């Protein structure tokens, strides 16, 4: 049994009980024996003393009158005590007067009495010499030798203790059986289930609860943990599968536009003297690049959401503008599929507090989806209505609808319907609705999807809180009428020649005076000579970084007031903080959508105005 102690709680409990029983018995037994050895001696000593005293008293006359017969008769009475082996009476001169030896015991020479009385144990016998004193006179000495029997007594004790230990052992076994039922069996059950779980990875197993004590609580906790692990491993599996799907989709989606772009490049090479072919190729490339940019933007948004770094630029926006923006973005898809599309907005102006671009993204997403998942030539409608303090925007279609089992997880990341009905439509990454819901929630709103089933159309409703009238009062008029800005002097510094040149062309197209430099040092020189109002500066440049350019420009009074815009591939908060510290006013993440440039320039111009005001007050 000992070799099993290490392996089961039950045997440990048993061993513990046996060990404690044995220890208690040994201690008790040792104490008992020690006590008995002492009392045994004391009892014998006092017993023999009494015996000797009686014998002596009875033999005084015999001694006095030299009557050995009587003395011997007195001694002979000792035969009723078989423990007494021998006895003798000595006279006052120490001479043997009378003696007695138990029948069957070999005669031994009687010792000479010592001077005085005393008890002595030797050779397993106890001996006593007792002086008989009467009338203050010594009358003689009594000697008694008895079988001490201490070893026998101890042996008796040990055998009794052995018996008791045997019974205790039995009791311990019985109790351990009971304990096993009460304590160790639930634990054993639990460990068995735990082993099964570890072997089979089956998290649906449960331990049966049999007690209501701490172990029962442990069983409950164990079961809860199993359930939780089961849920999590399931969720992990699902998430893993979704991510795999997503990666596959992503690769596919990113690869898709490359073929037409490649084709377009061939067309361009072969389009000498055929401007209409070249134009078509460029349009094709533009469409595909835009699609790729959209995909990558979505990816970036997903990354921002998962890291919690998606930030809204809140301002007061008018719903009509947002909807128009969204429709404008989705229009190409809607038109390409030949849908009938109606927009119905309330007559009054409705203001919302939020990020105009993000809100437009939400609605354009929904419109794109509606267009994509509806057979060509279908019906689509966008309808906004005010209900109390919220606006409800519903986008409905009569397309392929949504299966009821998909509906509950429609807004989860990477969920995607079956491939679009039409192969000509880009199906996207399956993050659009998740992004939309996230953005709507960030605006304090909600989004819901309804569908009567597959093939029966779908309906998405976005609810957003309306900004109070007080907030709405001021900007209304001024916000929109500055779309056309006065001509600005703009400096572009970027070592990426294509990017710098394309940006400069777009800016010139908007009517601005633009100068381009391709490194930091030239940029600083140009800034001083050209005296621009705004400077777009790339951060990662060889030689002199964008940070250094900003610091140098800020340090020079002639260039210190230029509105500095950092252009970088990095959009994290820490990156923004760094550019801000270097002296930049704005931080733009590449690539720049040309469509957003006017708004950006407008915003930049207004900060520039603020800046001048501040500078003036500072001075």
């Amino acid at each position: 049994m000992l070799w099993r102690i290490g392996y089961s709680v039950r045997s440990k409990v048993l061993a513990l009980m046996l060990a404690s029983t044995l220890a208690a018995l040994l201690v008790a037994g040792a104490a008992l024996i020690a006590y008995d050895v002492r009392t045994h001696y004391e009892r014998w000593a006092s017993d023999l003393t009494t015996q000797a005293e009686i014998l002596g008293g009875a033999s005084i006359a015999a001694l006095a009158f030299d009557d050995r017969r009587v003395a011997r008769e007195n001694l002979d009475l000792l035969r009723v005590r078989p423990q007494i082996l021998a006895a003798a009476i000595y006279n006052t001169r120490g001479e043997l007067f009378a003696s007695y030896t138990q029948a069957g015991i070999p005669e031994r020479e009687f010792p000479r009495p010592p001077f005085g009385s005393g008890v002595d144990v030797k050779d397993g016998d106890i001996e006593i010499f007792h002086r008989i004193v009467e009338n203050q006179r010594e009358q003689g000495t009594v000697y008694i030798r008895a079988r001490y029997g201490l070893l026998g007594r101890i042996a008796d004790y040990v055998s009794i203790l052995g018996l008791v230990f045997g019974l205790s052992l039995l009791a311990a076994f019985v109790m351990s059986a009971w304990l096993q039922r009460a304590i160790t069996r639930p634990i054993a059950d639990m460990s068995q289930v735990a082993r099964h779980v570890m072997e089979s990875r089956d998290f649906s197993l449960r331990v049966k609860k049999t007690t209501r004590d701490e172990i029962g609580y442990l069983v409950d906790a164990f079961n809860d943990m199993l359930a939780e692990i089961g849920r999590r491993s399931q969720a992990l599996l699902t998430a893993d599968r979704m991510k795999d799907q997503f990666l596959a989709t992503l690769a596919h989606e990113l690869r898709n536009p490359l073929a037409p772009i490649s084709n377009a490049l061939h067309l361009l090479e072969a389009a000498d003297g055929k401007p209409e072919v070249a134009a078509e190729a460029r349009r094709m490339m533009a469409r595909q690049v835009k699609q790729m940019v959209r995909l990558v933007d979505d990816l970036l948004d997903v990354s921002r959401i998962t890291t919690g770094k998606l930030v809204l630029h809140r301002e007061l926006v008018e719903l009509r503008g947002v909807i128009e923006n969204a429709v404008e973005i989705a229009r190409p898809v809607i038109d390409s599929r030949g849908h009938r599309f109606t927009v119905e907005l309330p007559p009054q102006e409705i203001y919302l507090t939020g990020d105009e671009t993000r809100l437009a993204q939400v609605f354009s997403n929904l419109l794109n989806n509606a267009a994509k998942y509806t057979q060509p030539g279908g019906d689509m409608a966008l309808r906004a209505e005010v209900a109390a303090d919220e606006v409800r925007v519903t986008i409905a279609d009569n397309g392929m609808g949504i299966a009821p089992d998909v509906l509950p997880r429609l807004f989860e990341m990477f969920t995607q319907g079956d491939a679009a009905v039409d192969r000509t439509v880009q199906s996207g990454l399956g993050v659009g609705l998740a992004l939309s819901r996230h953005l709507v929630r960030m605006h304090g709103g909600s989004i819901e999807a309804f569908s009567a089933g597959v093939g029966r159309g779908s309906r998405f409703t976005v609810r957003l809180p309306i900004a109070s009238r007080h907030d709405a009062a001021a900007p209304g008029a001024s916000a929109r009428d500055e779309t056309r800005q006065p001509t600005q002097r703009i400096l572009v510094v970027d070592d990426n020649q294509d990017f710098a040149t394309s940006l400069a062309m777009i800016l010139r197209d908007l009517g601005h005076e633009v100068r381009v430099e391709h490194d930091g040092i030239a940029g600083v020189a140009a800034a001083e000579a050209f005296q621009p109002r705004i400077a777009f500066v790339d951060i990662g440049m060889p030689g002199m970084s964008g940070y250094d350019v900003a610091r140098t420009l800020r340090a020079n009074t002639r260039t210190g007031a230029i509105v500095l815009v950092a252009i970088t591939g990095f959009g994290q908060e820490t990156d923004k903080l760094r550019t801000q510290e270097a002296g930049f006013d704005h931080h733009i993440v590449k690539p720049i959508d040309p469509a957003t440039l006017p708004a950006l320039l407008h915003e930049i111009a207004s900060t520039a105005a603020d800046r001048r005001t501040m500078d003036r007050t500072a001075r």
Partner: protein
Amino acid sequence: MATVIARLVCALILVFAAHFAGAADDSERALEQRVKAAYLYRFTEFIAWPDGAFAAADAPIVIAVAGASDGVAAELAQLTAGRTVGGRRIEVRRVTEAVLGARPVHLLFIPASERARIGQLARAAPKYAVLVTESEGALAQGSIINFVIVEGRVRFEVALAAAEKREVKLSARMLAVAQSVRSGP
């Protein structure tokens, strides 16, 4: 001549033998008297006299020896010198019939030489006096303890009735070693 010498030697041996036999007889007698003296002394330890037997709490126990010339008295005097029994000294006196009764006597030893006067001395002795004799038939004449020789050893016999009459109590332990105990008269 040889026979004369042999006879002479024989005669000499006989004379010596007779002489030595006599000497042995004398020493045996002395030993017997010493034992008896010792017994007399030890008797005092086993006899309880009534309170009236003593004039005072520290009055001595008086052992009287009748007759003028007995070795026992001398032995006793030597043996008991400086010894006490129950806090009492022991006084040994030689007495004649005339002085008996005048002073207290607790133990009266009547040697064999005075055996003819046992009855007389018994009557003359004070009430509490325990008579000790060494003559056959003495118990019938008022003696309480009588020495006898059994198998060459000094033993004694006791007459309880006489002791009761004199209101003295003899210890049961003493009675246990007595050669015989007579309870009747």
